[in-house]
């Protein structure tokens, strides 16, 4: 048994060494994709997002406000068009994400001691940068209003009567105090890339033996040995992708300074369980189709959309019943929760044990359904060579 496992693992690594493109799939391709995502999101927060200001009032209050908008690190006043039509033209040209409209009579309204309205039109088609612009402009306007209110009340009622708003609200973000998108996105996109590439590699490795008709010679032994040989074939891929998982985690936790709040061992255990789960599903799909091409197409459907269905970015709880069911059938959904618990929140190890067990269930069910069919195919040359 052990002999069959080791021989099969050796046979697979020898194949990888000789095949440039199969080797690429587990070496420089993962590195390239991990690096692209890491570099792109390395800023973490969005700075200097372009906005335009339409100042219909032209008074001192408006001028001060524009100066404060320009000074805000998150914003860049890219243009000062004379009217809304020109401003919208700039937004439609992707030259700005939002328009701040300072209406006529603002100065007079404020001087009367009433509340002046500032209008913010934002490009909702680009929701992430627009959301950031929204928060920044809101902060600037609030700060400016506070300064003005002090001045106005003091002018009308005398400085002794100036009273602050009765209640102030202090907002804090727990578990990600800098509100960095880098931690949130990269910590999820990296495993999303890795589990997909892993499943493609395993489906390819299993499917290739069918396509090339080599499964008969490879799994020539009795059933038990054949099962060990299949495990030995998958083992090198698990090892390689565990290293990628460790590298991705190390990059973000050590090099970029987003330390793992919970247990690193639990996180890496999660990676192992994630790969085992997708190995199980790879066996299921190859066993069901007995064709490399079709199995790869189904892999795209099954593991290619994990990120959208994981529920970490989009609220899957309020989505349709189908979407919730599909989300529950994806091992990545479980892993995403484990990342939140162990990396960001620092939950106790026991809290994530359920997720690991659930991931093992995918391995048991997937290989239980797929392995017998796959191993049996070694005796049926008529199914070999399907494309």
């Amino acid at each position, binding site marked *: 048994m052990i002999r069959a496992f080791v021989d099969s693992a050796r046979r697979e690594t020898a194949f990888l060494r000789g095949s440039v493109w199969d080797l690429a799939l587990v070496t420089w391709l993962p590195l390239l994709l991990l690096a692209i995502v890491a570099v792109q999101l390395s800023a973490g927060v969005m700075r200097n997002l372009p906005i335009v200001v339409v100042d219909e009032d032209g008074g001192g209050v408006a001028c001060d406000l524009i100066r404060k908008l320009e000074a805000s690190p998150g914003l860049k006043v890219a243009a000062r068009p004379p009217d809304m039509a020109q401003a919208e033209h700039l937004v439609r040209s992707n030259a700005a994400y939002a328009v701040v409209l300072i209406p006529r009579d603002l100065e007079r309204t404020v001087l009367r001691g009433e509340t002046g309205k500032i209008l913010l039109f934002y490009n909702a088609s680009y929701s992430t940068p627009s959301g950031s612009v929204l928060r920044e402009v809101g902060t600037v306007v609030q700060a400016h209003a506070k300064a003005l209110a*002090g001045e106005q009340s003091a002018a009308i009622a005398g400085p002794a009567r100036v009273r602050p708003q009765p209640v102030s609200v202090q907002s804090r973000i727990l578990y990600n105090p800098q509100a960095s998108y880098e931690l949130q996105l990269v910590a999820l996109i990296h495993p999303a890339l890795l589990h997909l590439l892993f499943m493609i590699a395993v489906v390819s490795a299993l499917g290739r033996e069918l396509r090339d008709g080599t499964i008969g010679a490879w799994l020539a032994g009795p059933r038990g040995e054949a099962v060990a040989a299949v495990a030995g074939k998958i083992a090198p891929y698990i090892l390689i992708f565990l290293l990628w998982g460790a590298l991705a985690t190390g990059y973000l936790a050590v090099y970029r300074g987003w330390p793992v709040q919970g247990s690193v061992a639990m996180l890496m255990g999660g990676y192992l369980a994630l790969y085992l789960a997708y190995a199980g599903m790879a066996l299921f799909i190859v066993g069901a189709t007995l064709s490399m091409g079709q199995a790869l197409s189904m892999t795209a459907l099954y593991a290619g959309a994990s990120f959208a269905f994981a529920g970490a970015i989009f609220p899957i709880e309020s989505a349709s019943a189908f979407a919730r069911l599909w989300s529950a059938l994806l091992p990545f959904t479980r892993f995403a929760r484990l990342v939140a618990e162990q990396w960001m929140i620092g939950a106790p190890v026991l809290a994530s044990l359920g997720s690991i067990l659930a991931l093992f269930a995918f391995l048991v069910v997937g290989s239980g359904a797929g392995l017998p069919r796959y191993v049996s195919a070694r005796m049926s040359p008529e199914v070999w060579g399907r494309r």
Partner: protein
Amino acid sequence: MIGRAFLATFRAVLSDRSAFMLIVVSTILYSFFYPSAYSGEVAVRIPVAVVDLDDSGASRSLVRRIAALQQADLAARPASPGAARLWLETTGAGAVVIIPEGFERHILNGAQGTVALYGNGAYLLRSSTALSGIGLALTTIAGEAASDQAMAQGAPARPALSLVQRPLFNTREGYGSTVFPGVGFLIIHQTLLMGLTMLAATLRETLGRFRLPSRTLIGIALAFFVIGWADVAYYAGFVFWFQDYPRAAGSPGALIVGGSLFVGATVAAALALASLFRTRERPLQLWMGTSLAIFFLAGLSWPAEATPAWLALLARLLPTTAGIHLMVGLNQMGASLAEQTREVLNLAILILVYGGLAWWRFTKISAPDLQPLKPD
């Protein structure tokens, strides 16, 4: 000869089961499958736990108002901040409001009462919009709750400025209507690219190296151009309508030009890439994993301004980057071609570069002419 190659390409797509699955079936399947992930739409209500350490008239009045808040769902009343933290850890995208001891006393003394709002940064993207909404509403209702108690002190200062926010173009602001118009064009790009390269690699595998006469290459390109356009028409015409996403804001003429540029650049890139593969399954293996990275590089969900400049420039080599900007701009934002000049030029250059590359790779090679597409 162009016509013959054109028809032969359609025959090839229809007779190759895997290619048909990829180019036709999965394009339709994905058009229902992906939008379902985003059908949750905006998270208007997030679960909120309130810890009332003051237990006074003012704090109870505030809790009642939080319960009535549109953005919040009063889900729990933990006894201590510690219990609230535990609740937040298990709830996920939720928020905690803590009313500290002495809240009412501070207000009555004419000082400022403080309320603390805690969000869950482990689910930053999901909770940040809802959180800023709750923060704004809290300021207002906390002021109301306190004003009864504080009347004796005279009316507090009224804010001098208030900000009114209005969405442009994508007024539904759902996850689906924001993300899927980008994802849709990525799906078209990826299925065309992998389908075409797979067919080319299959030919290469069975025939060895081959040379394509220029006209045959044009016929093949035209056939895929038609397939790509059918995809665009199906997505922009049917799927966006079926999902009720904001659409058709631009002029039909601009949409036709924009769609043609996007499909043209995609087909040209696919042809250029197709000349590199020798094994049928290889394009699927190597290209399938790229979708997520390509989507983020397109700059719809993560802006180019926050991407390192050199990477944002490299991303413009992908037809999806300019294509998604252009199609979202024309179709959702109602932009004109002149307003999207940068994307139009970008796609035109890609057509020339990739088209030239494909033409050079397929027609200039010294190898036998491709036989099956030649006249009998």
